[in-house]
């Protein structure tokens, strides 16, 4: 699998997707009023009757500058109200969006289907893709960790152990990245913009810090550079798997080599300050 290619396209799509989804979020309220919904629904009904095979709903969505998947959801919701006489449950709605064949009206099912598959940012399909991308990156992360011979616990293991908050990875032996200690790694297969990062910080990253100490977040699709401002407080941002991981043993071994006694001494000076040391402690031999 060509990761790099996939990553590039994904980055592009994802970035674009996020931007459009931002816009949708900001404009969605404009389409949610009952009057609008009614208007869309009536228009759909009339056009679908006129051109039963045409993707009228998709065209409508594009015309209204609304995400097709959202349009599908609105229309389906409205449709089901007529059928059942009440407000349909979310699960029913979702299952029908995922599986349009469940929709009693075949023309509508077709339209819905076209909408969901043609939406680049919303809808069950896109959700699946996103989920998959997330999973893939977690796998990628695990592979990299194994490659580096680092031992870790993944989210599932943590959950079974009863952790209340579970980052993707907890390193059993911490490492240092760019001079910062890393206890846990969270993989985010998305672009780190300020809004989402803030949300993540509050809901996830700080919680991780509160429990496991400093850690690393990988925004595989990049992030706004200014967001990486919590390094000293224990949250480090990267857009790829770090290359300069310092592990406990590795460096110690280097230090120890007898060829560098001088450095050893310097080192000692540094360390001595860290721990109050009683010189001349003797061993029980």
């Amino acid at each position, binding site marked *: 699998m060509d990761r790099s290619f996939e990553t590039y396209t994904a980055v592009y799509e994802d970035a674009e997707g996020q931007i459009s989804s931002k816009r949708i979020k900001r404009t969605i309220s404009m389409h949610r009023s009952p009057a609008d919904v009614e208007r869309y629904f009536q228009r759909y009904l009339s056009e679908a009757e006129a051109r039963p095979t045409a993707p009228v709903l998709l065209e409508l969505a594009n015309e209204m500058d609304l995400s097709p998947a959202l349009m599908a959801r609105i229309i389906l919701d409205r449709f089901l109200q007529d059928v059942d006489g009440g407000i349909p449950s979310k699960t029913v709605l979702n299952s029908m969006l995922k599986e349009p064949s469940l929709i009693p009206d075949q023309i509508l099912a077709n339209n819905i289907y076209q909408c969901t598959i043609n939406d680049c940012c919303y809808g069950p399909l896109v959700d699946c893709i996103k989920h998959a991308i997330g999973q893939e990156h977690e796998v990628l992360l695990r592979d990299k960790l194994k490659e580096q011979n680092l*031992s870790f616990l993944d989210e599932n293991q943590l959950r079974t152990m*009863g952790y209340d908050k579970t980052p993707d990875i907890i390193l*059993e032996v911490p490492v*240092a990245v760019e001079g910062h200690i890393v206890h846990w790694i969270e993989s985010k297969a998305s672009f780190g913009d300020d809004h989402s990062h803030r949300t993540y910080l509050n809901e996830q990253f700080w919680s991780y810090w509160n429990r496991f100490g*400093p850690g690393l977040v990988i925004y595989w699709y990049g992030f706004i550079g200014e967001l990486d401002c919590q390094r000293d*407080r224990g949250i480090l941002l990267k857009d790829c798997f770090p290359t300069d991981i310092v*592990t406990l043993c590795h460096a110690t071994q280097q230090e120890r080599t007898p060829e560098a006694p001088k450095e*050893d001494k310097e080192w000692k000076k540094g360390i001595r300050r860290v721990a109050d040391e009683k010189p001349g*402690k003797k061993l029980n031999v």
Partner: protein
Amino acid sequence: MLRKVDINTVLGWLKDVEGADYQSFTEPEFTVQKLEFVPFLLNFLREQSSQVLTNGPATPAKTPSHPRPAARTQGFSDKLAGRSTSSGAGSRSASRVQLFSPAPSVSPGSESEAAGPSGLSGVSAFSSPSFSSTRTPSPRLPGSERRCGQRVSLGDYMFSPPENSPNHQSHKGRKKGGGSTAVGGQLRHEGGRGDLHSNEAGRWEAGGRRSARGVGGGHTRMGEQVSPPFAGQLNLNNLEDFPPVGSSPISPATSKPSRRINPTPVSGDRPHSKPKTCFTSTPFQKASSPLLETEASDGLMTAGSSMRLKEERELLKREKTKRAQQVASPLLSALDPCTPTKTGARTGSKVTSDMPTSPEPSKVTFSSELDVLVELYCTCISENLVPNIFLELFFVMQLLTSWAHHTHDNEEQKSLCAANTEVLERCYLRQVHNCVYFAVKVLENQFQLIAHLDKCTLRLLAENERVACFSPDLRDRLTQAQDRSTAKLSPSASTFIHSVPFQPATDNRSNFFSDKAFHTFKKQRDVFYEVLREWEDLHKEPGWSFDAALGGRIRGIMSQLTSAGNHSHFARLFLKQLVQVCKGPRPSSSSVDAADADLLGMLGADSLGRLKRLEERLIQPHGVVGPCPPPSFPGHQEFFRDFIQTASCCQLNQHLQDSLCQQLLQLDEVSILSPADEKQRFSSVLLLARLLAKFLGFISFFPYQTSGRPSRDIQETSVALRSKVTSLPVLDVCAVLNNSIRRKRTILTVPWLVEFLSMLDFIGPLLLCYRTTLGSLLLLYRKLQLNRSEEMCYLNKLLLVSVLGWLFQVRRDTRMVQLKLGINALCLVSVCSGEFRKLLAAFVSGSTARSGGIIRKITPTSAELKDTPTAMRSQQKLQVDLEQAFFHNQPPSLRRTVEFVAERVGSNAVKHMKATLVRELVERGEKMLRDGLESPNSNASMLNESICARLCEAGLEALAKATKYCDEKSPEAIRVLLPDETTPTVKLSWGHASKMTLCLLCEALVRREWRSKYDRVIKVLGSPKQGSERVMCCPPHCKHNSPLPSDILIEIKVHFSCCN
């Protein structure tokens, strides 16, 4: 004794006079009380120096006093008046008073006084006629002893021939006293709290008498007359207080004026002309004066004396009350004004106005008197008579770093000296030269104490140009001590705050009643940290209020807690985080923090932190707080205190109390096998216990805290109420203390008890359980004398002395309850030395500022660090951090296991090496040596060199083998010892970690073994064949490029410790 000093100062110019004064004064003073003397002396010194420091106007010279007898009463009254005025008006005097609690103690002890007067009266009768003219002399007995030489000369001139003989006698007396000193000391110890005073006083009196006897020619008679029985005691006392100082020969010129002096002391004139200085400066003069007066009046005076005593007492009472009102802070404030080194205004003034005079040894005046003062002062310090050792040290540092702006002072002084008339008020410590001289002398004298300061302080001292200038010898010793010093200020300040790790064993769902509780706690934990982070970011912003900003969220947590019943979990989290963040010793204020960090060397700091600190340092003025800060919650402790206050949740508090108590008692039981080997562990336990105790005290007494001292009525009722209700105090302090005394564990228990007690509310000390505890502590304190070699080691005593002194200083009310002992402030060692350093650093910066015009400069300390390769350093630090981080999130048992394995395997490896490789090596070397020596034209030293080199190479080989050995063995052991659940990788990394430390260990040990054996071989071989030459030269050659084993051992130890 103080009087002596005063007298010296007052009368001081004329040494002869002084001597005479001493004699006469000493007697009365002693009669007054030993306790009085110390404060007097200290006050005197402070006054003098404060003048210098503050650059105050020269005190008016005293006019010769009028005939004593008549004047005395007047003078006395005058004195009293002067005192009262002084205390009221002069901040200094007030400060002094505060400084010296002993003064109040004196007053309370009516018995002692009473005893004193009687003795005095007797003495006075004898001495007074001849010496009475000079009141002061008599009180100065201690001085007299030391100054015998002076006295003699002085006496000769001043007094009638008998005086001379008395001087000699006095010398003898001293010696005797020296012998008897111990006795005196014992006596003190024996005395109960209240009794102590009286006893001491009695001794003093006795001593005074004796000395008087010895001193005065007529003394013998007088002594006999007065109190033959007392003599023994008196001598002892005197000796104790005033060990024989090298008598400083008085310059003949000075001696002459003595006669004049006699008149000076008493006259009514004084009050007007000089009154301010004399009286203000020495609160105790009163006491002495009455005595003197009594003496003067001889028989007549007895009645008068009693009256005077009463007056004195009243005065003392007043002072006491004043002090009480002033509560804790006064010391600080008092000190502050004195500290010359404060950079801001001072330096500015220096720079702008006249160039500060740089002290020169050649310009020292009164050196003999200063020597006497030094002796007196040092005796007080080493006998623990001083209220607070660190306070005194601080004072000495101040002197050392003092600046005098006015050069004209010298002239004035000179003129004054010439005039001789107004000597008393002329200060010995008026000039920088003298101050520095005095300070350096004291430092020399108290080198043992100084040597225990931390390295940075020592370094600053050693680099102080004044020290170098006045005593190169002291500088050298300081430099040496610096190398030996192991004292450190802040051991391991980790760069980031650790959170409390989530441990499934205690934190997962199964530990909660319900899902709801579990999830609530999850949120609470996050909110708690959110609050903490916000506090960190914002609490220093002006106008930020804890309650306003965080109160809502905190109360939210509390209400959720209550609904979910999660208090115990939250209390655990809270305490763990508290310990996590605050455990390290932190200086009292952030500025201190920054300065300390700078001075410590910014070795490990990453560049950003370094920059920040540098910034802070440049921006913030040095605040010299003084060595006795009031109890505080520095750094993050403040957050936790405010949190508790804001939350004001009784359930939470109860849970906190419970677990604090439990933890404290556990810590108190911690077995510390050999303090030497477990120094680090001990200190961490101690620090932790003190932290917990402080918070326990805070929570326990929080409900009773009042903003001010309650009125007497309220006091009584609340005491009555609480002594019944609180029959079960949070912590049975009495039992804890008694238990620890019995088991000789006070070194651990007392420091944390002190922290606990420092949180007492106003009523607290009145309650029986705390009263008795405080009493025991006071007793303990009185027993501590640094120079006595008892079973307790010096540092331990120092710790206790400082801690207790701090308590009694900071909580004057505790002392009041106990009555009066004249204990004064001490302060925690770390804080103190921090202050010292600040002083010194400020000095450095000040002096550079002079030349360069820059107000503050970075102390050279940091410069040295540059040469160490930064990359390496940060690498190493990273490793240390990594290790810490690793163990931090693992259960503590892991670390113990790893340490254990490392030690055992390491030890085995060493044995193995010894038996195989090392022996082989040594044998090979031996053979080579022998072969070489047999060859005809062998050069022994050359041969040794070459063999050494070869063996060193082989040694490296051995090292590799040892490493391999460890590599093989340690994983096995680790595998067996670690729980099965642990994932193999973790095991592996443990194995790695321990292996690494192991290897280091081996390397060191191999080298050590090898070297010692090698040395032995060389000796055996070398000494018979080639003489000692070879032995001498070989080891130095050997040492090239291999690190010292001790260094490596240290490194290893650090490695272990870092795992903590």
